[in-house]
């Protein structure tokens, strides 16, 4: 880890890799959540497995947490360093003329997502940890679905916050996911990119990452709204 702060390019790689890792995690999380819409029993099964499997809990979970922490700490480090690279600011800076809002405001979308993570931990992870490791309860593999639904039932503010946060996650991914391929130096010479990229990122990567960045976060929003409206 010590070498990562060594050069701008190393930081870039680290940011891209940790981002891609989190993107992967997002897919897994989404898949599990989505089962709550289709089949509450499957949702319970998987949740129970995830919550009690030694590998998941003792190995994957710390890695995930480290990944998240690394990604946001590095995000702040980059922001601070980049600010220093232009100590005197422009009086007029027309960023919209040459780049997307998403690409210029990763720190904002990132902070919203980070704040959401706080809420998410408060809602699920901390209660879960307390439930499992602090207090002692009898093993109940069917509790997850009801507990989850309960969070959204009759709580339009929480549901709204979830939806709002996922819109920002979408904005974050719209730039970040495609960007990570560029950072890793993907060869993309023979294809024309979409959006703001003329040739920097391949058409495939552009299309795929854009679709992913919209579908997954909107899927999360859908799940939250689904449960909210189903339990009015």
């Amino acid at each position: 880890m010590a070498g990562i702060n060594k050069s701008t390019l190393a930081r870039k790689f680290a940011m891209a890799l940790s981002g891609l890792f989190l993107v992967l995690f997002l897919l897994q999380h989404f898949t599990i959540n989505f089962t709550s819409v289709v089949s509450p029993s499957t949702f319970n099964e998987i949740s129970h497995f995830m919550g009690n499997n030694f590998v998941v809990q003792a190995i994957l979970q710390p890695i995930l947490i480290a990944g998240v922490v690394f990604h946001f700490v590095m995000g702040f480090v980059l922001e601070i360093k980049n600010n220093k690279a232009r100590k005197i600011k422009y009086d007029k800076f027309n960023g919209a003329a040459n780049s997307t809002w998403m690409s210029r405001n990763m720190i904002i979308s990132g902070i919203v997502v980070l704040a959401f993570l706080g809420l998410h931990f408060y809602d699920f992870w901390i209660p879960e940890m307390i439930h499992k490791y602090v207090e002692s309860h009898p093993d109940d593999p069917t509790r997850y679905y009801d507990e989850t639904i309960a969070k959204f039932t009759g709580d339009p503010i929480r549901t709204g916050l979830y939806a709002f946060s996922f819109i920002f996650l979408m904005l974050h991914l719209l730039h970040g996911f495609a960007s990570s391929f560029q950072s890793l130096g993907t060869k993309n010479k023979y294809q024309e990119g979409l959006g703001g990229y003329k040739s920097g990122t391949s058409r495939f990567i552009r299309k795929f990452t854009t679709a992913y960045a919209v579908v997954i976060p909107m899927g999360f929003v859908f799940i939250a709204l689904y449960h909210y409206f189903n339990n009015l």
Partner: protein
Amino acid sequence: MKLKLKIWRQEDASAKGGFQNYDVDGIDGDMSFLEMLDVVNNDLINEGEEPIEFDHDCREGICGSCSLQINGEPHGPDRLVTTCQLHMRKFNDGDEIVIEPFRATAFPVIKDLVIDRSSFDRIQHAGGYISVNTSGNTQDANSIPIEKENADDAFYAATCIGCGACVAACKNASAMLFTSAKVSQFALLPQGEIEAHERVLNMVHQMDKEGFGNCTNTGACEIECPKGISLENIARMNREYLGASVAG
């Protein structure tokens, strides 16, 4: 055409500097942006004031001297041009135009709109060359055929004029496009490939030392580059750097 100008004035590197407003009249659409500033300066001299200093030389878009941030964009609102090639027909009567120097910690202001871009030179010193002697006792120019596509890509990378618009446009003041263009030019040619690893490590190291920011792939540099240098070069440099780092 009548214009209102808001221009950064700064006595010297250590002075604080600030904006001054100027009105200019009689501007013709066929004039270049710098010729418009010539008019302002001529008026200033006639009034006994010091003219606005700005870098310029060839005035045909190739030397890379001119470097103005015009209404928040390097080289102004037009695409694929330098400030000297920007024509006043791109503006309308009565427009207010804000003119600032390119801003980056690695590009300190020398006076008014003149900046010090020697950081770019130092990046080049660190590895922007192929280590051959200039004796001419090399092999025949046609002894190594080069795939046209690679030769063309090397050429496109090599068309960089070192103006610094990429840094100026980047919200992070990153010099990745400039550095990667040079790295790419050589990496794409068999003559340059030999030292490619060492070159990319040295040039990136120097780039970081100069205090440029981190690239976050906003793509602003590519859009604002007067020579249209492609982001592909940055991807290539990332690859080269990764390869070089792994190889040690």
